[in-house]
C-alpha cells in the first residue's frame, strides 16, 4: 500500500543521554514494519534517477520493491549484484548528496530513505543467513594485486572476484578495512559489520596480506615479479594536514587520524587494551567535516566534560552530513562557528592549556563557492582547553610513488590517472578513491574501485 507521507519513516536512535558513556551504535536501524512502511514511499519510477546518482549503480527501485513484498533475501541479493558493502554504505554513504538527492519524492517532501533501507536489507541478511552464500564464480586463475583494503580496494576486489580473478589484498595495518576501521567510530559503524562484509570476500577466496606496506615491504615491481598481472592502488588519503600553528607539537594536540586511530583501531576506550590516549576535560576539534564530528563525538564518549567544534565559517557551510551535525548537537557538542585558531598555548610540562582564536565574518564567495571567512580585527580571545584535535583534511600517502618513479603524482600528491578507468602512468597499474581524488566519500571510492576492476578485466581478457 502506497505511503504518501511527506516525511521519512523515523529511524530509532539511542537516547542522547545514554550516548555519553558508550560507543554503541547511535542509529538503531529499522525493524521490518518500519522498512516496509518506508519502502512503500518509493514510487518505483520508470526513469530511476537514483540509480544513476549511485556511484556503483545499485538497482534501487528493484531492491526496495522486494522489501515491500518482504522478500528480504532477494532485496539483499539485488544490492549484492553491485556492492558487497551494503551494511557499511547504508550507514556511512552521504545519500543526501547521491541517490536520495534526485529521488522524485524529494521534490515535495523528503526523499525515500534509501540508505536506511539498504542498511535494513543488509542487516537482515546477516542476521538470518549464513555468511558466504551469494554468487557463483568461474575462476580464471589470473592474479591481481589490490593495495589497500579500504572501500576502493574492497570494491575493486569484489568486482574482480566475481569475474573470476585470483585476488590478493595487501594491507599496511594489522586489520583490513582502511578508513572503515581506523577512521569511522564504532558508534557510527560497528566494526563487527565491517568484519562481516570483508569476511564475505575471504570466504569466496580473496587472500589478504596484512602488515604489508607496498612501497616499503614490497615494491610494485615485486608484485609483478610475483606473477600479478595488474595492480589496483586504493591507498586512500591518509596523510594528515596540520595548520602550521605555533604550539602544534604540544602534547594533547592530535591529528584527527591519530586520535581516531587510537580510539577506533586501537580501542583506547576499552580499558582492556594497552592503547594510551590523553583525554582531557575540555576538547577542541578544529574543522567542520564528518571527521571533525566523529572526533568530537568520540572525545565526548571518552569522558570529556565539554567538547567544542571550532569552525571558521558558519553553520550553513559546515561540510559534515546533516545527520552527523544533528547527532552532535543532541550530544551537546558546542559549535564555535566563525572562529579560527591562531595559536595553541602550552604549560611548562609541554601539554596544551588553551587555544588562541580569532573571530571571523563572512565575505564574498571564494573559488569553492562558499563565502570566504575574514578575520575581525581585535577579536583575539583565548579558550581554555586540554586537547586540540586537528581535523582539516588529509592528502594521499606518498610511499608507493616514492619507490616507483614511473608512477606520477600531481602537486597535491594525488596519483595521476589517464582516464575514467583509473589507469595510472605505469602500465598495468590502476588507482582509485582518495589516493586519486583527495579525501572524498566511501561510495565514491567504491565507484572508482569498480570502474578500475572492469578496466582491468578488459585488459586481461
Amino acid at each position, binding site marked *: 500500500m502506497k505511503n504518501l507521507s511527506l516525511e521519512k519513516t523515523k529511524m530509532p536512535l539511542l537516547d542522547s543521554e545514554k550516548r555519553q558513556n558508550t560507543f554503541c551504535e547511535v542509529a538503531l536501524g529499522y525493524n521490518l514494519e518500519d522498512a516496509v512502511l518506508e519502502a512503500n514511499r518509493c514510487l518505483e519510477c520508470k526513469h530511476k534517477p537514483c540509480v544513476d546518482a549511485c556511484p556503483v549503480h545499485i538497482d534501487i527501485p528493484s531492491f526496495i520493491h522486494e522489501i515491500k513484498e518482504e522478500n528480504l533475501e532477494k532485496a539483499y541479493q539485488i544490492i549484492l549484484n553491485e556492492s558487497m558493502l551494503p551494511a557499511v554504505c547504508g550507514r556511512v554513504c552521504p545519500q543526501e548528496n547521491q541517490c536520495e538527492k534526485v529521488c522524485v519524492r524529494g521534490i515535495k517532501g523528503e526523499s525515500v530513505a534509501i540508505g536506511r533501507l539498504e542498511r535494513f536489507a543488509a542487516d537482515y541478511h546477516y542476521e538470518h543467513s549464513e555468511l558466504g552464500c551469494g554468487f557463483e564464480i568461474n575462476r580464471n586463475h589470473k592474479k591481481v594485486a589490490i593495495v589497500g583494503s579500504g572501500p576502493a580496494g574492497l570494491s575493486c576486489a569484489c568486482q574482480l572476484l566475481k569475474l573470476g580473478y585470483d585476488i590478493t589484498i595487501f594491507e*599496511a595495518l594489522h586489520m583490513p578495512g582502511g578508513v572503515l576501521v581506523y577512521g569511522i567510530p564504532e558508534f557510527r559503524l560497528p566494526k563487527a559489520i565491517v568484519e562481516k562484509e570483508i569476511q564475505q570476500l575471504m570466504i569466496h577466496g580473496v587472500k589478504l596480506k596484512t602488515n604489508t606496506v607496498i612501497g616499503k*615491504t614490497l615494491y610494485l615491481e615485486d608484485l609483478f615479479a610475483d606473477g600479478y598481472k595488474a595492480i589496483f592502488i586504493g591507498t586512500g588519503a591518509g*596523510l594528515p594536514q596540520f595548520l602550521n600553528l605555533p604550539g602544534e*607539537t604540544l602534547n594533547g594536540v592530535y*591529528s584527527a587520524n591519530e586520535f581516531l586511530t*587510537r580510539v577506533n583501531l586501537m580501542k583506547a576506550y576499552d580499558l582492556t587494551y*594497552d592503547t594510551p590516549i590523553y583525554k582531557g576535560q575540555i576538547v577542541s576539534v578544529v574543522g567542520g567535516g564528518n571527521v571533525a564530528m566523529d572526533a568530537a563525538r568520540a572525545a565526548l564518549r571518552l569522558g570529556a566534560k565539554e567538547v567544542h567544534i571550532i569552525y571558521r565559517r558558519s553553520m550553513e557551510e559546515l561540510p559534515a552530513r546533516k545527520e552527523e551535525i544533528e547527532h552532535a548537537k543532541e550530544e551537546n557538542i558546542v559549535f564555535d562557528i566563525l572562529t579560527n585558531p591562531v595559536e595553541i598555548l602550552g604549560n611548562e610540562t609541554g601539554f596544551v592549556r588553551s587555544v588562541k582564536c580569532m573571530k571571523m565574518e563572512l565575505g564574498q564567495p571564494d573559488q569553492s563557492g562558499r563565502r570566504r571567512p575574514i578575520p575581525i580585527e581585535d577579536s583575539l580571545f583565548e579558550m581554555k582547553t586540554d586537547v586540540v584535535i586537528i581535523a582539516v583534511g588529509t592528502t594521499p600517502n606518498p610511499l608507493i610513488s616514492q619507490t616507483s618513479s614511473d608512477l606520477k603524482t600531481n602537486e597535491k600528491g594525488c596519483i595521476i590517472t589517464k582516464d575514467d578507468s583509473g589507469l595510472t602512468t605505469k602500465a598495468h597499474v590502476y588507482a582509485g578513491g582518495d589516493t586519486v581524488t583527495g579525501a572524498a566519500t566511501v561510495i565514491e571510492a567504491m565507484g572508482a574501485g569498480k570502474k578500475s576492476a572492469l578496466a582491468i578485466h578488459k585488459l586481461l581478457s
Partner: protein
Amino acid sequence: MYKIIYKKSLTPTITLMKVLAPDVTRHAKAGQFIILRVDEKGERIPLTIADIDHALKSVTIIFQVVGKTTYLLNMLSEGDDILDFVGPLGKPTEIENLKKVLVIGGGVGSAIAYPLCKALFEQNTQVELILGFKSKDQIILKEAFETVTNHQYMTTDDGSYGEKGFVTDQLNKILKKDQSYDHVFAIGPIPMMKAVSDMTKNYQIPTTVSLNPIMIDGTGMCGGCRVKVGDGIKFACVDGPDFDGHQVDYDALLKRNMAYRLKEQKDFEDVLKRGEA
C-alpha cells in the same frame, strides 16, 4: 604471525631476538625500523632493525624492557609467535661517499649503531666507534662491533669498564686531537644525542641522529611522531627516523615522549605485579 627463531639475553634487561619475516628482509637497510604488536590488545611499538639475515630470512631486534609491551615481548620464547611485525619502515641511513666517520652509541641505542657500522664498514668507510654504557654489566654487542669497526672507544658512567664518564667526554677528547671525520652518527638517549650534536656543531662536523618518538602506524598516517627540525615539522616515521642532529628541537621531543608516561608507568607496574603473583 611471525616466529621467534632465536632469543638471547644480552644483559638482564636487554634481549636480542631473531624473528622470521621474509617479506621484511627483502628491502630492509640500516637505519630502518619495524613496528610490532605482541598480542591482540597490545600497543604497536617501533623497534629499529638491528640486523638482517638474508639466508634465514629473519630480522634481528634488540630491546630493553622499559614498559608493559617490551616486558610481554621479553616473556616470549624461541618458537613463539609475534602477532604483527611490519616493515621495513622509515628511510635508510644515508651513508654514501663517506671516508671516515665516528659512530656513537649509547646504551640500548648501540643496537641501532650496529647495522650502521656494518653497512659503512662493508663500503670501506673507516669506522671509529664510541660505545657508552652505565656500567660494565650493561655492555652489549662488544664483540660484534669489533668485526665491523676500525677502532672502538668504550666508556662507562661508573668507570667499571673502559674510560670513566659519558660518551661526550670521550668525544671531546677525540675532537680536540682529530677533526678529520666526514660525519658523526649519534644514536642513544635524547639528552646524549643533544649533547653530541652541540659538541659537533662547534667543529662543524655534519651529524645524524636517529629519533624514536611515539608512533602508531609508521606510514605517515597518524602524524603522532612529528618532530621539530629547523623551522619545519617532520614525521619521524616517513621523513626519518634519521635527522640532521644540529637542527632537531630535542627539548620538544623529550616533552612529547613524556605524553603517556603516567599510563605507561601504571601499565608496567600492573603487569609486573601480575608477573610476580
